[in-house]
């Protein structure tokens, strides 16, 4: 290979490799890598692409299940949803780009996750997002929120995929490192499911979609695998720019290519661009690939070979095509007015070889200059994985949040403060920036139920009386509770998703996760990661729900410290008939209100504790009990099943799970969503302290409303307490004995005023 001066160790270090990694590369290659090769390897060996610190842990997660069709390893996982259809879904982070440029960071996050979905052959039918920012009194937090929400809307709305749900939390530890995780779901006939494994030496490699430019050079290593300095503006050139119009055409073109069975494998271009896509396709197929850079359609004429190989220009796909099908493939591309070009061939060499100016003849590239020649194994499999050195923190990792609630606040003031707290306030001002309706499937819009509900087939009318099966989706994680107890906090996140699905009548089919953590090389962060993954695995096994895929985002920390450990869980379930999908709002005056499930609320790490400025508990030190309330899986499962079956029966009016802010906030949410009040007495036995009865938090509890006899039927399966009646225009709650003062009586209008506070943040 003609290369004047080879790069050395210093260049490798500057590209983010460790010295030991560079030496390993030289040893395996039997020589030093040249510039193009080093650029390729530095990205493939980055944390973002290679999961160096998480791979061993991820292997402990259960990935088998009754409904599983495709597990981790492909662009997205998939589950069987009946009638010959599958649902593919995945969550992915775009945290670091969004911290630098929130609008484009979030927009390309959506674009990227949508490509993952149609790469496996599924038509995207929904997007959800999971966002974390610093406290919104800081202008930067509001700027990031505004930019990220606008960016998600800009992409999702423009490509005709509804954004049907999501979650957002505001906490100090996210001030320097915001989180932007996007999840997407797609539906496909099982027969259209596509792998990314390249196959068949002599077949052609076709790149189609947008042209390749300099945007996003080195995004995976520069941005995603190192802590961000304050003021990451200097890294802005590494942020990719999204074009939803191009993305929409690319989606339609890809699905048509699959429908017409013109391609043998399909892969999107994401982090590390062509390098990563080609390496992954070759690795999965056990083949080699040769690419001629002259054939890559460029946006800028004078791009260096390494730039072409690592560019993260958006809206591009790579596919393998039998030579005789090439004209048909290019014709489909042309019909969508997008570029397509055969840029290389599949070989049996087991190497990725990068050429310039070769001749393509009968399925081989001949001549030209050789710019890079790397074994696929070195790019993909030989990356060292690192063990963690976990250590439970002995001192608080996070600064205490200042109290925002007066010490002598009354229960009524507490409830209003909780409803107005940014973590609980109505999400409507955010959700309504997203098109939640396109594709004619949305049966429960954001805010109408605990989980979003989609009909599997678009609604056509015609007086059909057969049940219309649907999908339900929930995404959740309360990072503050995970920080208090990474093991139980993660279990709570999984149970919360399952509870949300139960409230609409859906049974979980599978879950995806995005592990957002700080720097795993620090022992306390390693401990959080290990505990969280252990909790995730245990919860999945208890629920019999497989992990179908996911993503890891590490090094989310700034000068002020790490983020809260945030294992975001996205769960997909199925319900037999969308006509009976549950709602969260109280519906009918005179309905009975019931507290269902094993619910033992505690003030620890609750939203009220935060407003009161109480410090997070230190993770437990045996023999002390863990900070978060204990819940036996069989009891949790029994409650979830009982609620699901009650909703499916169509006999009850509403179902809502009890989460942030406890029972009082859950009651207020049911009243506000239904536009009707309630009168409730909370039984003293659920917690000793009246304030814990009102505002304490724990998994396992549900609020249901409906006819008394229908509710009573749940008591055979799970604890059930009748606590009140729906009606009127006020919410009245009695939480203590007579004279205890633990009493709330507030008009719906007062509750609504507090709950609507987010609108004011958006200017």
């Amino acid at each position, binding site marked *: 290979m003609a290369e004047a001066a080879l790069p050395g160790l210093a260049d490798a270090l500057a590209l983010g490799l460790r010295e030991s990694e560079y030496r390993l590369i030289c040893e395996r290659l039997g020589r030093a890598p040249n510039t193009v090769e080093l650029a390729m390897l530095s990205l493939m060996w980055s944390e973002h692409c290679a999961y160096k610190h998480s791979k061993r842990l991820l292997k402990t997660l259960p990935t088998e299940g009754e409904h599983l069709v495709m597990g981790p390893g492909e662009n997205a996982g998939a589950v069987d949803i009946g009638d010959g259809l599958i649902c593919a879904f995945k969550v992915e982070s775009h945290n670091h780009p969004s911290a630098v440029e929130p609008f484009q960071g979030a927009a390309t996050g959506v674009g990227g996750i949508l490509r993952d979905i149609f790469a496996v052959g599924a038509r995207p039918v929904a997007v959800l997002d999971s966002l974390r920012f610093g406290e919104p009194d800081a202008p930067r937090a509001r700027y990031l929120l505004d930019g990220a929400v606008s960016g998600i*809307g800009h992409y999702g709305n423009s490509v*005709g995929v509804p954004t049907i749900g999501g979650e957002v939390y505001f906490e100090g530890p996210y001030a320097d490192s915001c989180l932007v995780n996007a999840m997407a779901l797609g539906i496909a006939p099982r027969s259209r499911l596509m792998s990314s494994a390249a196959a068949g030496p002599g077949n052609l490699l076709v790149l189609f979609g947008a042209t390749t430019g300099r945007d996003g050079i080195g995004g995976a290593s520069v941005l995603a695998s190192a802590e961000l300095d304050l003021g990451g503006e200097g890294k802005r050139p590494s942020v990719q720019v999204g074009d939803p119009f191009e993305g*929409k055409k690319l989606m339609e073109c890809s699905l048509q290519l699959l429908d017409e069975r013109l391609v043998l494998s399909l892969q999107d271009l994401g982090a590390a661009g062509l390098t990563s896509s080609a390496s992954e396709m070759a690795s999965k197929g056990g083949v080699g690939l040769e690419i001629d850079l002259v054939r890559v359609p460029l946006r800028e004429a004078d791009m260096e070979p390494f730039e072409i190989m690592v560019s993260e220009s958006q809206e591009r796909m790579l596919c393998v095509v039998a030579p005789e099908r090439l004209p048909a493939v290019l014709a489909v591309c042309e019909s969508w007015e997008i570029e397509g070009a055969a840029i290389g061939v599949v070989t049996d060499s087991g190497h990725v070889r990068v050429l310039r100016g070769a001749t393509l003849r009968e399925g081989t590239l001949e001549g030209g200059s050789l710019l890079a020649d790397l074994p696929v194994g070195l790019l993909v499999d030989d990356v060292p994985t690192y063990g963690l050195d976990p250590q439970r923190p002995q001192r608080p990792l996070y600064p205490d949040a200042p109290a925002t609630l007066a010490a002598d606040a009354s229960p009524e003031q507490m409830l209003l403060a909780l409803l107005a707290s940014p973590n609980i306030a109505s999400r409507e001002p955010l959700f309504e920036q997203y*098109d939640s309706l396109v594709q004619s*499937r949305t049966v429960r819009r954001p805010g109408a139920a605990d989980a979003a509900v989609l009909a599997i087939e678009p609604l056509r009318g015609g007086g059909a009386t057969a049940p219309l099966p649907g999908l339900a989706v929930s995404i959740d994680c309360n990072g503050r509770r995970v920080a208090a107890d990474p093991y139980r906090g993660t279990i709570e996140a999984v149970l919360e998703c399952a509870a949300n699905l139960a409230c609409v009548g859906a049974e979980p089919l599978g879950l995806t996760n995005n592990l957002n953590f700080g720097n795993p090389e620090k022992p306390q962060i390693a401990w959080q990661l290990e505990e969280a993954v252990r909790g995730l695995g245990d919860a999945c096994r208890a629920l019999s729900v497989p992990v179908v895929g996911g993503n890891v985002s590490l090094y989310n920390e700034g000068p002020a410290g790490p983020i809260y450990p945030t294992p975001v869980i996205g769960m997909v379930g199925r319900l037999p008939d969308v006509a009976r999908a549950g709602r969260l709002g109280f519906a009918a005056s005179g309905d009975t209100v019931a507290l269902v499930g094993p619910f033992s609320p505690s003030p620890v790490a609750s939203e009220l504790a935060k407003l009161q400025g109480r410090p997070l508990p230190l993770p437990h030190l045996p023999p002390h009990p863990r900070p978060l309330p204990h819940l036996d899986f069989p009891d949790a499962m029994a409650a979830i099943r009982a609620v699901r079956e009650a909703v499916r029966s169509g006999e009850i009016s509403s179902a809502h799970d009890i989460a942030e802010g406890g029972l009082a906030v859950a009651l207020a949410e049911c009243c506000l969503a*239904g536009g009707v009040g309630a009168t409730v007495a909370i039984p003293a036995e659920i917690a000793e302290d009246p304030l814990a009865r009102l505002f304490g938090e724990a998994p396992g509890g549900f609020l249901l409303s409906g006819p008394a006899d229908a509710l009573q039927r749940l008591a055979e399966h799970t604890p059930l307490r009748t606590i009140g009646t729906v009606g009127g225009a006020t919410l009245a709650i009695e939480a203590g004995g007579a004279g205890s003062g633990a009493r709330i009586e507030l008009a719906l209008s007062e509750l609504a005023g507090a709950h609507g506070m987010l609108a004011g943040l958006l200017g």
Partner: protein
Amino acid sequence: MRCGVLRFPGSCDENDALLAAGRVADAEIVSYRERDLHGVDAVIVPGGFSYGDYLRAGAIARFAPIMEAVIAFAREGGLVLGICNGFQVLCEARLLPGALLPNAGRRFVCRQVRLDVVNPHTPFTAACAPEAGSPPGAGAGAREPESASGATLGAKPPHTPPTLSIPAKHSWGRFYAPEETLREMAGSGQIVLRYAEGQSFNGSVGGVAGVSNRAGNVFGLMPHPEHAVDELTGSADGLCIFESMRRAAQGDG
């Protein structure tokens, strides 16, 4: 009735329009590349972001090959319905008066809104009056969709215009026309829909939500009737727009 639904690159709601129109008539997609409407009885220009709307909403789609045929069809009195981006395209093509500007709040908003049917005597709204024997779920009395705010619509007093609960979702939906034009339009029944009191979020002049041309055969609106055709998805009030078109096209309106 055979209804042709246009598809431009970047159209998003064309399949929804196809499904909605398909509930009352035959409906088919017509590609922007065509130069012929193949004898359809009515045309729907759907919502979305044609050509990405990077220049000005609808400004490029207006020059797509199919639009010449649509303009000729409209001049001959054919029924043309423009929804959201389709409304923008029809304004750009000068088939409808006025223009659509960025929302007053400069944000994309997706929200269920109530609309007053100001002119229930057009080929697009004749079936929206409750007394006109409305199709199931259409017109007055239909259930409000669920929403986080939980607001419900009470019973309407008699002799008020019919109102429809239909979602709107756009960032360029602020209708504008000079005052004199507006007066003329009002006088000739061209202002067909207005947002009900307190329902407009985009700052449209006079709360205008939907307008027709002078002849009444071309109609554009920002809200999406095709997303309000089934109680399961929140409302069936939009169905009366398609039903009106069917009746007009078949001469039984």
